[in-house]
């Protein structure tokens, strides 16, 4: 594995499978009364969040703590960052603190990449702008494997605001690496120019694609996009690109429905779909911790055999 995890493209097939296998071993921990491993004792993991995301930060924090790492939550609010300290100055401060890993969330695409040039520790991208969110893609792949037994050969349909979605970008890359066949479905306004060069298919017709899908992943669509003119109304968006019970009924028997959260019930996903047995939304949250443990563990120098042994 590379020293950093900035993009899902940093992982080749073996790397990705190693993360998933390690996460699977580590997931067994969650069933034990004592969930902690001594593996990263004495190592320091910094959560550097320039954007509010309690869910993702908590997930990384829990992952690091279960591996016995020291965790520092460095939130941009109330810190020197909001007083105009540059990203580089922040990086130098973290470097001086001896951070072994920096988990960074930033509103600017590319910020983790910049950071990686300035510090010696590992940088984990926890979501940068409209670029990538590789650990989300890993936990999604993990969830698919858990439910369907494999990722290779699955038909995965990703629906919604691809243009602004770091989840979509990371998923397209990782799922392609793992041998799944991805189809993006969105209004043409919410697909980036140049999407034709991505390793996936594109469709504007959700009804045509759903019956051929093993996995349907619904992306969050923000109501603000309506005011940006990307679509006329949330009503039309839901009708054309939302997953309701009628569309869900056309899925193959074993197919699952995913959502990275937080959901807009009644916009991209109907409440009865979100709460159905096909929905993996709650599992995705739980799997997030296991996958992030695996990523931190592997980036900070752990080998696979050791991981399995200590989890046993």
């Amino acid at each position, binding site marked *: 594995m590379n020293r950093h995890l900035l993009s899902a493209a940093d992982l080749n097939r073996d790397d990705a499978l190693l993360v998933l296998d390690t996460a699977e071993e580590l997931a067994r921990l969650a069933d034990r009364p004592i969930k902690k491993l001594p593996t990263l004792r004495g190592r320091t993991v910094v959560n550097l969040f320039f954007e509010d995301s309690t869910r993702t930060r908590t997930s990384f924090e829990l992952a690091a703590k279960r591996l016995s790492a020291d965790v520092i939550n460095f939130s941009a609010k109330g810190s020197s960052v909001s007083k105009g300290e540059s990203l580089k100055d922040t990086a130098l401060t973290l470097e001086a603190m001896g951070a072994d890993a920096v988990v960074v969330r930033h509103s600017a695409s590319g910020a983790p990449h910049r950071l990686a040039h300035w510090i010696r520790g590992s940088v984990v991208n926890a979501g940068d702008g409209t670029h990538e969110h590789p650990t989300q893609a890993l936990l999604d792949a993990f969830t698919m494997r858990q439910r369907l037994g494999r990722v290779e050969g699955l038909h995965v349909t990703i629906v919604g605001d691809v243009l602004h979605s770091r989840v979509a970008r990371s998923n397209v890359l990782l799922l392609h690496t793992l041998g799944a066949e991805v189809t993006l479905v969105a209004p043409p*306004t919410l697909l980036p120019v140049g999407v034709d060069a991505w390793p996936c298919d594109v469709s504007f017709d959700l009804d045509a694609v759903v019956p051929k899908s093993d996995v349907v992943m619904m992306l969050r669509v923000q109501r603000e996009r309506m005011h940006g003119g990307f679509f*006329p109304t949330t*009503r039309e968006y839901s009708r054309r690109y939302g997953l309701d019970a009628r569309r869900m009924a056309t899925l193959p028997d074993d197919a699952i429905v995913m959502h990275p959260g937080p959901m807009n019930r009644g916009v991209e996903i109907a409440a009865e779909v979100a709460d159905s047995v096909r929905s993996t939304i709650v599992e995705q949250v739980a799997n997030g911790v296991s996958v992030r443990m695996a990523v931190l563990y592997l980036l900070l120098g752990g080998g696979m055999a050791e991981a399995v042994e200590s989890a046993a």
Partner: protein
Amino acid sequence: MSGQNSWVLKGVRPLGGEPTTLFVDDGVLVDAEPSGAQSFDADGLIALPGLVDLHTHLREPGREDAETVETGTLAAALGGFTAVHAMANTEPVADVAGVVEQVWRLGQDAGHCDVHPVGAVTVGLRGEQLAELGAMAESAARVRVFSDDGKCVHDPMLMRRALEYLRAFDGVIAQHAQDPRLTDGAQMNEGVQSARLGLVG
């Protein structure tokens, strides 16, 4: 089958062709003379395919005093038009599925020619927010041509979004080649005549 609408058109010239005889059986061109067809001396006349008018104002609903779907399509059919596109500046504006379906149904009921309602690109032709283009496309009217006509979509970003959005169902936008900032109060083409007449170009 034969009837009132079965004809033998003698000496007619299909556009760009030589004079010939055409057989029409109940409104449809056929190879042989239908029984009971009426003969018509079309010497000197030209046979054209059904014409399509991309820009009409049938004024219904809202301005039935000026025109209705019935009167407009009757005039169109008499002029050789088999399809007309009805612009969206009705009252209410044709910016939702309900209005375009109404206009389409009126056309079906009148029965003179096909009526293809043109959907508004923006709500109320106001140029601010996209109308429900997808709902109009999927309605019984199956709208594929959208236009704010004389109002023009003058916000370039909104126009970009509209053009992209329509790709999902192969729609097109008809737009006057004008910018409202440049045509404020305009009355005629700007040039020697507008200068002489004192009219705004």
